[in-house]
C-alpha cells in the first residue's frame, strides 16, 4: 500500500516540479481562461443585466476549454520521448500512475478555475457571497477531479492510438457533459438558495464512477 501511495506521490511531485520550472500548463491555460472571461465581458456586459448569469456562464465555459487544454498538456508530457513507457516498465501498479496523473491534472485545472472565478468578479462584476463562493470552489474542485479522471484516460487513448489532437475534444466533451450540467446547475442553485440534492448527487456519483472506471481500465488503455 505504501509503495502504491509512494508511486502516486512521485508522479504528482514530478509533474508539479516540471510545472514549477516551465509554467507551461498553468500559464497557457490561465491566459486561455482569461481570454474567455474577457470575451464575455466585451460581448455581453452592455446587454446582459444579470452578472450572476454572466459570471457562471463564463466560469464554466472557461472551465471546459481550459480543462481540455490542460489535460492535453499534461499527457503530452508523457508522450514526449516515450516517457509513459518509462512509467509502465516500473514495478508499480499502473493505477498508481493513473491516479498520479489525475491528481496533477486536477491541481492545474483547479488552480486555473480559481483564477477564472476571480477574473469573473473583476471583469464581469460577479460577486457571490463568501459562503456561496466557498461552495462554488468545492463544486469546482469535485468537477476538476471528474474532468481529470475522464481527460487522462481519453487523452492517453488519443495519443497512444495516434489520433489527431483534434479528436480529443470530440471524444472528451460528450463524456464531461454530466459534470458540466451538474456544475452549472449547482452554481445557479447555490446563488438562488434552491435545493442542491439531485445535482450534487449527479456530480459526486458521476465523479466517483468515472474515477473508478479510469482505475479499472487504465491497464488496458495504455496497452498497445
Amino acid at each position: 500500500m505504501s509503495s502504491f501511495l509512494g508511486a502516486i506521490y512521485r508522479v504528482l511531485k514530478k509533474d508539479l516540479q516540471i510545472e514549477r520550472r516551465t509554467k507551461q500548463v498553468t500559464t497557457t491555460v490561465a491566459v486561455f481562461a482569461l481570454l474567455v472571461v474577457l470575451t464575455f465581458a466585451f460581448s455581453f456586459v452592455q446587454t446582459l443585466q444579470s452578472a450572476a448569469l454572466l459570471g457562471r456562464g463564463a466560469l464554466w465555459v472557461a472551465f471546459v476549454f481550459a480543462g481540455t487544454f490542460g489535460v492535453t498538456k499534461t499527457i503530452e508530457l508523457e508522450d514526449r520521448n516515450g516517457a509513459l513507457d518509462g512509467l509502465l516498465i516500473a514495478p508499480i501498479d499502473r493505477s498508481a500512475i493513473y491516479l498520479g496523473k489525475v491528481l496533477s491534472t486536477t491541481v492545474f485545472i483547479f488552480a486555473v478555475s480559481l483564477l477564472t472565478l476571480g477574473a469573473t468578479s473583476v471583469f464581469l462584476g460577479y460577486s457571490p457571497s463568501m459562503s456561496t463562493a466557498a461552495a462554488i470552489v468545492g463544486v469546482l474542485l469535485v468537477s476538476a477531479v471528474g474532468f481529470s479522471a475522464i481527460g487522462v484516460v481519453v487523452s492517453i487513448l488519443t495519443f497512444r492510438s495516434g489520433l489527431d489532437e483534434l479528436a480529443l475534444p470530440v471524444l472528451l466533451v460528450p463524456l464531461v457533459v454530466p459534470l458540466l450540467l451538474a456544475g452549472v446547475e449547482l452554481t445557479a442553485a447555490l446563488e438562488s438558495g434552491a435545493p442542491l440534492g439531485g445535482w450534487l448527487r449527479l456530480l459526486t456519483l458521476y465523479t466517483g464512477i468515472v474515477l473508478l472506471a479510469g482505475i479499472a481500465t487504465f491497464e488496458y488503455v495504455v496497452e498497445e
Partner: protein
Amino acid sequence: MKSGDEPIGADAVPPAIDVADVTKSYGHFTAVEQLSFTVERGSTLGLFGPNGAGKTTLLRMLAGLTRPTEGTVSVDGVALAPDDHTTYRTVGVVTHETMVYDELTARENLRFHAGLHGVDDPAARCESVLETVGLSHRGSDRPGEFSHGLRKRLSLARALLHDPQVLLLDEPYTGLDQRSVADLETVLDGFDDRTVVLTTHDLERGVERCSRALVVDRGRIEADVDLDESGAASFESTYRQAIGVDEPETSEAVR
C-alpha cells in the same frame, strides 16, 4: 510445456527468458507469429532482421510494454501478467525513445525512476550509474540540451538503475559515434553475468557481441544461429539466405 502453465521443479533453473508460441496482431496485420525460444541466463542474444520484421514488437513484448495476442512471455520463470508488475524489477529496457523528461535534469530524471523502482540509496545509485555511462559531469544538465549519443547514454543509465538481471536493448548502436559505441561496449562488457537481448542492423558488431542470433523476418524466426560456433562471414551468408535477398543489397542494407 508452455511457460506459466506448470510450476517449474525445485531443482530446475528456468531460463532467463522463455517465449512460448507468441503472436502479436494489430487488426489483420500480424507483426509476430507463433514465436518460441528461450534465452539462457548470462547469454547475449541478437535479434537480426530487416525493417518491419517484428524485432521491436518482440522486444516490447519481452519488456511487458506490449501484450501478446497469443502465447506467454516469461522472465525468470514468471509469466508477464498485466496485474503483476514485480517481474519488471529484473528487466532494464533501452528503446529508440529515452523515456526521460526534457524539463528535468539528468540527475532528477534518474532520481525519479530510482524512486519508482524502489532503489535503495537512490542518490548514491544515481551517481554510480551516471559515472558508469560517463555522464557524471552532465548530471545537472537537462536531456533537452544533450546530443543523440548523450541521450542514449542517459537512457542506458536509467535502464541500469535498478541493477537488472535482464537488459533489453533496441538498436543500441544507432546514431552513436565511435567513442559512444566504445563506451557502450565497455558497459556491456561489465554485464557479463547478466542476460542481454538486443536488436541491431549492425551485423558486424552484433555478431561480435552476441553468443546467439535469431534472424527474424515477417514476424517469424527464419534462422537460429549459435555465433560461438559460426563465424561472422558464415552468419552473414545465413542471414542473406534467411531474409531472401541478394548479396550486394544485403551488404548495403546491413552496413
